[in-house]
């Protein structure tokens, strides 16, 4: 990946030197660089999870397997309204909302197999707060100046509207310290 990055960087720098700042090629360069960088961010891996076998919620006892419950195992670091109570699910935004790609992550232990998983708490945006099943657990939460671990930040960023509606809790990998 580094070689590709360097090649893209060299190409883009060359193009940038040969064209005016407002030239459309400059803008294309931004897209190329952005495209090469974004897949390296942990938050962009939600569509290509490294988890071969996602843990089975149905096998869990009590509310630890219920995505509408604050006790749901993936909700260990949430601060907000779980989308499962708002017309969506733990991996789907409710109808008509917008999924924010920029997010924060927590690490939650699955009580079924005892393994730790990295959970991406993406916000769903564009409609007023759902407000149902409000849940504040904040395990591992850090202050705003450690943004990637802070659930006090409205993560409706890079979306058409930054109005917060609810939060999903998607597994994006197994914790590396396992």
């Amino acid at each position, binding site marked *: 990946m580094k070689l590709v990055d360097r090649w893209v960087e060299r190409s883009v720098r060359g193009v940038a030197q040969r064209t005016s700042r407002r030239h459309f090629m400059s803008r294309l360069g931004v897209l190329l660089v952005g495209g090469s960088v974004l897949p390296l961010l942990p938050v962009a891996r939600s569509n290509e999870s490294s988890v071969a076998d996602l843990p089975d919620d149905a096998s869990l006892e009590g509310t630890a397997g219920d995505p509408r419950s604050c006790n749901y195992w993936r909700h260990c670091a949430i601060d907000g309204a779980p989308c499962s109570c708002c017309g969506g699910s733990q991996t789907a935004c409710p109808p008509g909302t917008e999924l924010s790609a*920029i997010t924060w992550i927590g690490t939650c232990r699955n009580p079924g197999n005892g393994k730790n998983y990295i959970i991406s708490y993406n916000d769903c945006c564009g409609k*007023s707060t759902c407000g149902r099943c409000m849940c504040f657990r904040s395990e591992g939460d850090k*202050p705003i100046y450690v943004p990637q671990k802070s659930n006090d930040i409205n993560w409706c*960023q890079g979306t*058409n*509207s930054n*109005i917060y509606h609810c939060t999903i809790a998607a597994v994006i990998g197994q914790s590396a310290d396992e």
Partner: protein
Amino acid sequence: MCVVRRLILIMLLSCSPLCLAQGLADRMTIATLPPEYQPHWVWVNDIAYGHVADGQAFLVDADTGRFLATLSAGGFFMKLELPSTRNEIYAAATFYPRVNRGERTDVVTIFDPQTLSPVDEVIIPPRRQTGNPTLAHSALTDEQRFMAIYNMTPAQSVSVVDMQERKFVEEIATPGCALIYPTGIRRFQMLCGDGSLLTVSLNEDGSGAGQVRSKPFFDPWQDPVTEKAVRINNQWLYVSFDGYVYPVDVAGKEPKFLPTWSLLSAEDRAESWRIGGLQHLAVHERRQLLFSLMHKGGIDSHKDPGNYVWVYDLRSKKRINRIKLKGAASAIQVTQDDQPLLLTAFIGNPKLTVYDPDSGERLRTIKQLGSTITGLQTN
């Protein structure tokens, strides 16, 4: 038209409100606030969590319990700026033309303190950081000319507004550092992800004059300080999740880190006492007192509400009082006069409770204050 119909018409006309109003009528007016606010008037900030496009601040008289007025602040309202040198109030907010959709506009609105109506606004980059409010999301520099607003997109920066000229100055990139803690004339500091402080200086026109990064003064992974620091004179008091106070002297151009001390004894720690809340600290400047909202809880309970306020003498660094609250609180504040009041509110129950900070006696409760109280400010 038959005679009966004509009679009915005449009766109706003769009983019109205009007719009734002759001779006896109230004069309808719109109330205004006096030029001088009282020391016990309190701002109760409400982000309106269920409909964040409509944040509000309520002005309440904590002596009488009287509700005085509402300031309609706008979307993702965090806090007010209350300059002592200008008869104005400022609030940064985010607006959409169709409530939740359309093109985003961020503004600093200037309000008239006597009507709480907007009189002007300055448009700023649409990048202010939103979320759970703190009192550090924006601030005025000490000479009160420039207002700094923290941005995150997630790139981190600060927007500077000249409040004297009512114009946006510039956006200053502050990678890795967040929030605004004013430290002097045209100067403020920010908390950084590695546990250091970034001191940002401004030129006379408000443009960035330079930045200095300190060495880390705490470990953000082992025991981070909360964002809810309080300032007393030239010291900022940052308090960690585990209850350690990190005083930072900001009298000079660069911060001076003073010895840390603990809010908790070994016995307190054994009993699992912890700090916690959205606005868990307050100070009384003249009496040199620190107030800390406390609860018993486990790790990661740094945002849980408290049911006690512990009071410390900042000269001796000793606890001098423990006030048992009559209900949970997530925000506390203290008025700055010689007969101070302790004020508490809980985000889950929209009321303000007023205590005597010496006796701990509950004096009164003011109910029906919006929906989700996030912070308390005094004038």
